[in-house]
């Protein structure tokens, strides 16, 4: 549980090489492919961060847009006063604090209410930011002028994705990760085994929210002008859920498997059916939930288990086994 296995070392090497290769992309293309890859990396970071919490707990959070928007807005508001790296950390901290408050208020309530609450919260924050900005400044949005180009944003997001994966991996091999697995299996057993379930869920929700806020902050320089309807768009929350579920939330790398084909599909759809994108996306979502409830990785694991030992069909329990 604590020592590195051969397989873990190999995985780490493969991941590092993949990250390094991905980092060379802007050297070859600075147009369409960079833009598409940037979206992929952004959702890879967001979906993996989302899964850190929602994977083990099975609580579906739709607050992604709130954390993301807070990160973006922190950068937009503070750009004239603070250096960019400090703003990214501030956005990260602000999102973590919000996640802590939301968690403390809602993680004792059951799953369905949590979904509705987080969705309502994201909308509420969007409205509050719009209202406050119009009242106080008379404007709707903010200008974000930096020297960063798309490739810088890409590199920063790639680094963030690496950090999110590393964090997820460290959590999985820690007491926190094991505790979350137990909570996901049976919360009553978890409590009676000595796990402070409420506190751990809040801690994990904060870690997840912090990374989402950080992604929002890093993304801010991509757009010269940010406004609440764009920064806090609920589409972010929905897309993150869809892609994470498509990939599968049982493994750390599950969401990544969902992000790549989904972004390609979305790109294809938005070019072919520019006016009906939402409809086609909605249908895609339904198909995913119906056909792949455990995601692509869940299906792959089932297939793997089937191929590995085809003889272990469920067998009737024999008398000797009962005794």
């Amino acid at each position: 549980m604590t020592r590195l296995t051969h397989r873990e070392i190999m995985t780490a090497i493969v991941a590092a090489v993949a990250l390094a290769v991905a980092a060379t992309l802007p050297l070859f293309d600075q147009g369409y492919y960079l833009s598409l890859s940037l979206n992929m990396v952004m959702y890879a970071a967001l979906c993996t961060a989302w899964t850190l919490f929602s994977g083990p707990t099975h609580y579906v959070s739709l607050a992604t847009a709130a954390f993301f928007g807070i990160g973006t807005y922190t950068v937009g508001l503070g750009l004239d006063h603070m250096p960019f790296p400090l703003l990214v950390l501030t956005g990260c901290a602000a999102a973590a604090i919000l996640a802590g408050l939301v968690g403390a208020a809602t993680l004792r309530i059951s799953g369905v209410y949590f979904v509705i609450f987080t969705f309502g919260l994201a909308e509420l924050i969007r409205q509050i930011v719009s209202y406050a900005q119009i009242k106080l400044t008379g404007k709707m949005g903010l200008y974000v002028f930096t020297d960063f180009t798309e490739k810088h944003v890409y590199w920063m997001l790639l680094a963030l994705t690496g950090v999110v994966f590393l964090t997820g991996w460290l959590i999985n091999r820690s007491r926190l990760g094991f505790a979350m697995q137990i909570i996901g299996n049976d919360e009553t057993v978890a409590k009676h085994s000595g796990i402070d379930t409420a506190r751990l869920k809040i801690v994990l929700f904060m870690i997840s929210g912090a990374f989402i806020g950080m992604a929002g902050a890093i993304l801010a320089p991509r757009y010269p002008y940010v406004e609440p309807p764009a920064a806090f768009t609920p589409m972010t929350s929905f897309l993150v859920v869809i892609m994470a579920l498509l990939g599968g939330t049982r493994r750390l790398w599950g969401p990544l498997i969902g992000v790549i084909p989904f972004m390609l599909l979305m790109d294809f759809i938005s070019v072919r059916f520019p006016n009906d994108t939402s409809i086609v996306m909605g249908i895609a979502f339904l198909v995913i939930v119906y056909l792949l409830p455990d995601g692509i990785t869940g299906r792959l694991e089932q297939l793997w288990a089937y191929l590995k030992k085809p003889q272990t069909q469920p067998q009737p329990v024999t008398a000797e086994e009962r005794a």
Partner: protein
Amino acid sequence: MTTPALSVNGARKAFGGLVAVNNVSFEVQEGELFGLIGPNGSGKTTMLNLISGALRPDAGEISLAGTRISGLPAHKIARQGIARTFQLVRMLPAMDAEHNVIAGAVFGHQRLWGEQAREAAHELLALVGLRGREHVPVAAMTYIDQKRVELARALASNPRVLLLDEWLAGLNPSELNIGIALIEKLSRQGRTIIMVEHVMDAIRSLCGRCVVMNSGRKIKEGEVEDVLSDPEVIEAYLGDDDDA
């Protein structure tokens, strides 16, 4: 007299108008195998829930080795050294036997980690008769084996007091003998155990002392033989045709 391992003093719990546990007091000594019996609906499981922190008592005090635990949340009580099994067996269904038991070792009274936790789990699985089945998914196990895993998980925290909630219920006669032998073995190792049980043969052969509850009240406490021959206890049982 030394401090009792567990003392319950005037515990009370009501659900609306129904008083499930009404002013119940008893003491369990270190190393004792203590029975908690009574007809269906007499409040035994509620009593265990009060001790383990699944429920908070409305009044009264429960102390573990002299330290008050009533009012603490369940996870803190578990860390203080109370472990339990459940009336309907509760597994961590996606895990194998080993990890079900490690779960008890990592977060409870004795906080082990890594190789130590794994070793403790293997020892306990051997103790409950599941040597060699460490990597079997619990979902594929028979009912008695799941009960064994659950018992091993409770023991993995090295609890000061072990609560068994009808651990023998649902076992067939041959399994029952295995189960009774297992509890006896734990008791001989010096464990302090409180068992809620319906199987009277088990209470007779295992427990030294017991408490009888009826309609939320303690109606009798004492040596098992004396208690079971008490007219009031017999009436409580025979008056309830629901019971075995």
